[in-house]
């Protein structure tokens, strides 16, 4: 799984397979991080008096994406 494991070979097969895996995991992790950071920033922003986003009903929210 990592270059530290015994089976690891520095060849193209391992590069492609693990490359895609870590890419997918990286995208997921970054997505989560972005959501978390945005939430924290929002909480912080509210302390300074910024308004909370208007709660949107679940129905209309789905049309946003």
């Amino acid at each position: 799984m990592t270059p530290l494991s015994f089976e690891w070979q520095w060849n193209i097969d391992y590069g492609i397979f693990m490359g895609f895996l870590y890419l997918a995991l990286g995208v997921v992790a970054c997505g989560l991080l972005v959501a978390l950071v945005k939430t924290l920033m929002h909480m912080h922003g509210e302390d300074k008096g910024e308004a909370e986003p208007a709660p949107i009903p679940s129905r209309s929210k789905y049309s946003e994406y």
Partner: protein
Amino acid sequence: MDAALIPDGLKRTSPGKFFLWTLPWLGLLAWGGISAVLCLLLGLNQTNMSNIFAFALWIVFDLVVIALGAGAFFTGFLTYIIGKKELKDIINATVVIGFICYSGAVAMLGIDIGQPVRGWFIFWHANVHSMLTEVSFCITAYLAVLGIEYLPILLENRKLREVREFRIFGHNLHHIMAVFAATGVFLSFFHQGSLGGMFGVMYARPFAARWDFYIWPTTFFLFVFSAIAAGPCFTILCTKLTEAISRKKLVPDGTIQLLAKISGWLLAGYLVLKIIDTLGWVHGVVPGAGLTFMDFFREGPYGAWLLGLEIIICGIIPVIILITPQARQNHGLLILACLLNCTGIVLNRFNFIVVNLAIPVMPFARFWSYLPTWQEWGIALAVVGYGMLLFSASHRYLPLFPREKELNAAVSR
């Protein structure tokens, strides 16, 4: 009692009735629990698997629930990436179904392997040339993605929404859902394919062996195709079942019809490929191994009829119903088509697993039979029980169907 948890403005049955409804499913879970303890403590001799039937009921169940759970990734793909807006009315339900199917399959696999404690070896000591490695990596990663997709739905719960952090976090997750959906599509595509590839690469088993297309055997593509053809039908079935039990309309007909139409055309495309592949296999791989098609069925209860049942009864008939607008608008025919479609995928996976292993390859090897033990059934059915419980609870406490309020107001008017 739990009124504070039920989504605003939606009607749900009384807690007592709901509790009674959960009892059979809790029973299945208990049965599965006992079976799991027995299998983990005493070993896999609790099953009827053998050196001949190395894969059996559990693997069939695994492959089937994963294929049926494909509704989640494919509907996500259509909603977020293609932009089919109608499907947003059902996307939440598909995510929950997908999460149930994948988590159930992973739990079953944990018991299915002989040394569960060493499960992590697949990841750490991965052999990147094995299809099963690809399956394990992608299923685990996709289960995580499904968990993330499920999270904002969970945070929609009335009580959880009262916590401001949760509300904002759920909102932000919703905003970047397309990213998760795209990653999910990538992961899911590859493991649905590798599950098929697992059998196509058994080149020494002529019943499963197929040619390679680049580095993947043809079953790689057929399994992806069949999963996305059957997944939406399973979603329709689950929705219709929920509607029947809760006696409410939950999803607009347009959405169901769209899903049915997409499913029908996909199934038609799949069948064309499957028939070409089967003919090619009968005239290529099989004679190459010194066999004729009928040689596979010299002994035992399995026969060519299984293939006919899979392709004609559970393939061509649902295609005709699903692609004909008049037929699929008929409620009974729609349900029948969905049921046949899902049965077809069960048969397909069964043929590739149990029938494949039952057919001896050496001319002097004998035929062995296999019937699952109650422990095997227990663990397989526990996934059904778990799914029923999680889906019922999700429906009760979360706004799973965004247009439920609107649709039922219209009905009462």
